[in-house]
């Protein structure tokens, strides 16, 4: 699957860059418009077999709703700059032009006065569907190790 691996790496690069740049509407376009699930999950709940998500979107509309307030700029939240690093990307083929993708994520938060600190540590578990030259997200779980959330989680991971 090394041919897919490069493509999946590129996909995560685009994914991270769109969120870092607060291009929220473009980010939603990475999801399969017909069928998609996006969840942010706490590792604590995962380990306990408990279903509660931190964020849970079960349709493309819900993904769009998740960022509607951010896109419109009416949400009160910490206006820090976020920088995502996606590493250890791996993928395995699935039937019907799909791949299962995994990756690690760290997010740094930088204040308006130029002070940076680690904000999030998480892992991606995704199913992507080939769509022409691109990939679309059928499901994405972001399992958060740093589930003792610092202040709030407004912007998707």
């Amino acid at each position: 699957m090394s041919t897919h691996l490069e493509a999946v790496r590129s996909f995560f690069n685009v994914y991270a860059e769109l969120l870092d740049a607060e291009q929220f509407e473009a980010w939603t376009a990475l999801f399969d418009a017909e069928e998609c699930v996006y969840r942010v999950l706490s590792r604590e709940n995962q380990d306990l077999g408990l279903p509660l998500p931190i964020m849970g979107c079960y349709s493309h509309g819900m993904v769009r709703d998740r960022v509607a307030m951010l896109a419109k700029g009416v949400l009160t939240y910490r206006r820090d700059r976020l920088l995502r690093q996606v590493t250890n990307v791996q993928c395995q083929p699935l039937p019907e032009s799909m791949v299962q993708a995994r990756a690690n994520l760290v997010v740094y938060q930088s204040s308006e006065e130029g002070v940076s600190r680690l904000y999030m540590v998480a892992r991606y578990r995704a199913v992507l569907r080939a769509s022409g030259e691109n990939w679309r997200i059928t499901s994405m779980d972001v399992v958060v190790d740093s589930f003792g959330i610092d202040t709030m989680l407004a912007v998707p991971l």
Partner: protein
Amino acid sequence: MDKGMAQDPNAWPTSDFSRVPYAVFTDADIYQLENERIFRGPVWNYLCHEVELPEVGSFVTNWIGDTQVVITRSEDHGFHAFENSCAHRGAQLVTAVRGRAQSLTCPYHLWSYSLKGELTGVPLLKGMKGKGGMPATFKKSDHGLNVLQVQSHGGLIFGSFHAAPPDLKAFLGPHSLSQIERLLVQRKPKVLGYLRQRIPGNWKLYNENVRDPYHGSLLHQFQVSFGLQQPTMQGGIKVDADLKNTWNHSILSATDKDNQALMAQAYEGTGKFNPDMKMADPALIHVPLDLGDGYKTTILSIFPSLVVAQVDNTYAIRHLRPKGPDEVELHITYLGFESDTPEQTHDKMLTANFIGPSGYISLEDGEALRLVQQGIRHRRPGGHEVLEMGGVGPVQDTDYLSQEISIRGFWSFYHRIMGLGGAQAEGKPA
């Protein structure tokens, strides 16, 4: 930082607690005093829910103020709680957040304890080959763990460090008793998951926040933008006799054009009134209220650190774990019910988006508290909060939501239990 200011009698200039010195949120001495007089004082602290201790040997850990405690279910199915510190040299005994064990053994010298906190095993108690060992005067029964008094009501387990805590039901008060029955007893709860939020603000700021319906539709723009809650929404507050516990509620009502006009008026000049937004997938807001009693939001705030909240179709226990004057961890236990159908459980996964650190109608709370703590940290000494919304004077129940009266109730009880000088608490009028 105005160190010591909160203990100055002049720091509390009004008897109705419409002025609260900012120093209570920043002063390290006050924080120490809170651990002594509140968390170790004559109160009942929330420990956990009974369903989290399903079997003999089940244990969970929690925090009361700065102190970590272990809560267990013992062989006789009783609940027990003790400080998480070995009686020998003080090491933290239990490192797992939760689990199951027949006994608890300290990793350092392997002293072991029963599920009730009694010392049962001391390695090399008699020494080796007649040498060493404990002196003849050493009795294991003198060296149990520091236990708390434990009582439960409606599935909620409480602990107290105090030698003579108040009667639990009296401490909870009538509104808590009826709401615990409504939310946690009439259906058997189960845990659907946990959420944790570390808020860089003083633990009392959160107590204010949950007693403050005034901020609801102003800070939380999701509701306003999508027309889900309005400042014109009906509801009110009820406070108990000693003013420490509050029940806030809002009532489901149809929105109409009159309300829209009132909304525009209420938000005049804020630039925040955006009723043009429509949800792309409104499934979340169409989840029916499964209790069927018309209450849209009910927030039960129990002194000093417990909130039992129903927000739409979400049911959650929120517990405050202070981490010094400047930080609090909000620990949320999200509940479903044994009787829930798979559809209802799925609905609760949808409505989970309302609450917690990413909640559409809660996520800004963490930021608001951070901003307050930032704002007051180095303010000119002697400043006060202004709590006049909804009226000043005696603390009383209201049938309106634009108020901060129940916050004043919190401070009245706080001031009394802390033994601070200045304003004398006024009782609730009959």
